[in-house]
């Protein structure tokens, strides 16, 4: 039974491998990608319900026992995230059918996509910090391929930056892992939690914690390490940008969640204060970018950065309410960023430009798209009862409990400005004077609507169905607040 835990990694991996055998048969590629993503969703939902009723699930790969071998740990946080990943992958794959272009599809697009999903799921599930690095590399390699895929000039330019930044941060990652191993003698996260606890407040632990913050901050686009993100997320085709914005920074954030709650939870005075300040500055910088730009893609990309600040504020507050909020917001942000990127992609297809000044009056020909965008925009800003609201509410509650009133205030202002930045797209791009007649539209977006509707509905469900979601999220937060349960599940003899 515990073998099931590998499936969120294995299904996309096998799907990707099989897709390598018939690259030129585009229809077969599409069907295969679609079917396997459906299977992936099924597997994940099954795992999620299983874990909720039976507690944390572990899998010792190859039968090697926990502190020595590699373990996969499926607690609710990890499996909630893999489930959301699968739920987002399916609509983005569907969206790719009509937007990515046959040339890209023939050159292993779906295979790379599946490998990316495999790496992301692996990073969420692993219980071993070196394996976390390996999964990072898997997803990064796939993302290097995707970001330059098609090889247009701007793509290659930005992919160069992207590769350099990530290679450097990966090098730091390995250095951090080596330090950690030198100090504690283990790489298993559960055992690390124990050993770091015994080491107490040694300064070297704080140094390592900061090193990891730099690494994950680079991957997760935390201030001041976000500089690579706007370029590299806005140049590739929308479907690729959507999967990057929905998932890649989230893996970095998830790693901060894990390391800062399970491992570095002893001496929080320095590390969590730094995290608090950085998260506040990230919100401010992100929102300034979101307001300043007049290009719809860039407005969204800067909103990705704002969300990073919001979520990490929850980690910095370090109490149960804040964690619930952060996890809720994280899950919803995966969905809503994917939704908004796809909507903007459809908008750009119709308008033929990504400049806000070149659009107008889209509501006349695309009423459904317009209202989808309106709902998604409100959900992003956290207007009740939509999806962004429960997360933001709990973040505010948790932040206030921890006494971080100033950052809470910053967050409120930032939320309003986020709303302003997206409503501006609504007012100018969707309402306003129509720029194009129906005949002048640059492309049909009919085929792009189903995934958008699906994602917006999912986001709405996260708001209206907050009651249903809450036990899942609460049990996910439980392992973060009280890592004992996590440690016992891994090391405590249920092998």
């Amino acid at each position: 039974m515990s073998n099931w835990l590998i499936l969120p990694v294995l299904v996309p991996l096998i799907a990707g491998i099989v897709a390598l055998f018939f690259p030129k048969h585009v229809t077969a590629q599409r069907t295969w990608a679609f079917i396997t993503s459906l299977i992936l969703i099924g597997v994940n939902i099954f795992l999620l319900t299983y874990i909720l009723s039976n507690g944390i699930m572990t899998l010792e790969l190859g039968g090697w026992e926990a502190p020595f071998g590699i373990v996969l740990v499926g607690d609710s946080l990890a499996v909630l995230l893999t489930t959301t990943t699968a739920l987002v992958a399916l609509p983005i794959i569907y969206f790719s059918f009509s937007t990515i272009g046959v040339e890209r599809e023939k050159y292993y697009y779906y295979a790379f996509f599946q490998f990316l999903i495999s790496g992301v799921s692996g990073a969420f599930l692993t219980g071993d910090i070196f394996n976390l690095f390996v999964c990072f590399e898997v997803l990064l390699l796939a993302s290097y391929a995707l970001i330059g895929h098609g090889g247009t000039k701007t793509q290659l330019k930005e992919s160069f930056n992207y590769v350099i930044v990530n290679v450097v941060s990966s090098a730091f990652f390995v250095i951090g892992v080596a330090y950690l191993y030198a100090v504690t003698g283990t790489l298993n996260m559960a055992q690390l939690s124990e050993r770091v606890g015994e080491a107490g407040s040694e300064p070297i632990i704080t140094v390592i914690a900061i090193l990891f913050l730099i690494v994950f901050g680079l991957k997760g686009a935390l201030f001041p390490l976000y500089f690579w993100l706007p370029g590299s997320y806005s140049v590739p085709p929308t479907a690729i940008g959507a999967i990057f914005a929905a998932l890649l920074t989230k893996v970095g954030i998830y790693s901060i969640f894990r390391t800062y709650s399970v491992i570095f939870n002893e001496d929080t005075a320095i590390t969590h204060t730094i995290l608090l300040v950085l998260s506040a500055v990230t919100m401010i910088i992100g929102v300034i970018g979101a307001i300043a730009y007049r290009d719809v893609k860039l407005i969204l990309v800067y909103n990705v950065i704002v969300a990073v600040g919001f979520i990490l504020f929850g980690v910095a507050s370090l109490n149960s309410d804040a964690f619930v909020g952060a996890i809720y917001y994280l899950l919803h942000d995966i969905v809503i960023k994917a939704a908004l990127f796809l909507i903007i992609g459809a908008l750009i297809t119709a308008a033929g430009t990504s400049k806000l000044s070149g659009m107008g009056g889209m509501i006349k020909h695309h009423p459904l798209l317009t209202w989808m965008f309106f709902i998604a925009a409100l959900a992003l800003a956290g207007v009740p009862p939509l999806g962004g609201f429960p997360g933001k509410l709990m973040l505010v509650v948790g932040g206030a409990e921890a006494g971080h009133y100033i950052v809470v205030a910053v967050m409120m202002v930032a939320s309003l400005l986020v709303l302003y930045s997206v409503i501006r797209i609504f007012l100018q791009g969707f309402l306003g004077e129509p720029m194009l007649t129906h005949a002048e539209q640059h492309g049909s977006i009919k085929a792009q609507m189903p995934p958008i509707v699906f994602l917006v509905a999912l986001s709405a469900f996260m708001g209206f169905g907050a009651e249903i979601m809450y036990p899942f999220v609460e049990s996910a937060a439980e392992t973060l607040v009280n890592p004992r349960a996590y440690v016992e599940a891994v090391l405590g003899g249920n092998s």
Partner: protein
Amino acid sequence: MKYNDIILQTVTKFISFLIFLFAVYIFFNGHQEPGGGFIGGLMTSAVLVLLLLAFDMETVRRALPIDYKLMTAIGLVFAVGTGVGSFFFSVPFLSQTFGYFHFPVLGELELTTTLAFDLGVYLVVIGTAMTIIQTIGEDK
């Protein structure tokens, strides 16, 4: 400009077989001792690169008409397949087992399921290395 590479070509014809044999030896030597699919694969791709250097791309392609991308895919099937096998025996993923078998000529030998995994790695390494080198080499 025409290079006079008769020495390189002659030596290559001879030495590439030696390197390849050594690569195979290293490949089978793995598991208990230094060696295995990764180094074996790298060494084999070194042979192929040597051939590419001594002769030209067309000649090598005619001599060895291999689609290296397909080779990578087949290797992945082997590597992942050994992991998937664990589902049918209800043991943890990636578990391995071994046994002793008697072969004519060679005698008693240890065979492990890891060998199949390693064969996958071997193919993936050659496939990837050669795909990269051919892609760079073709670019004029």
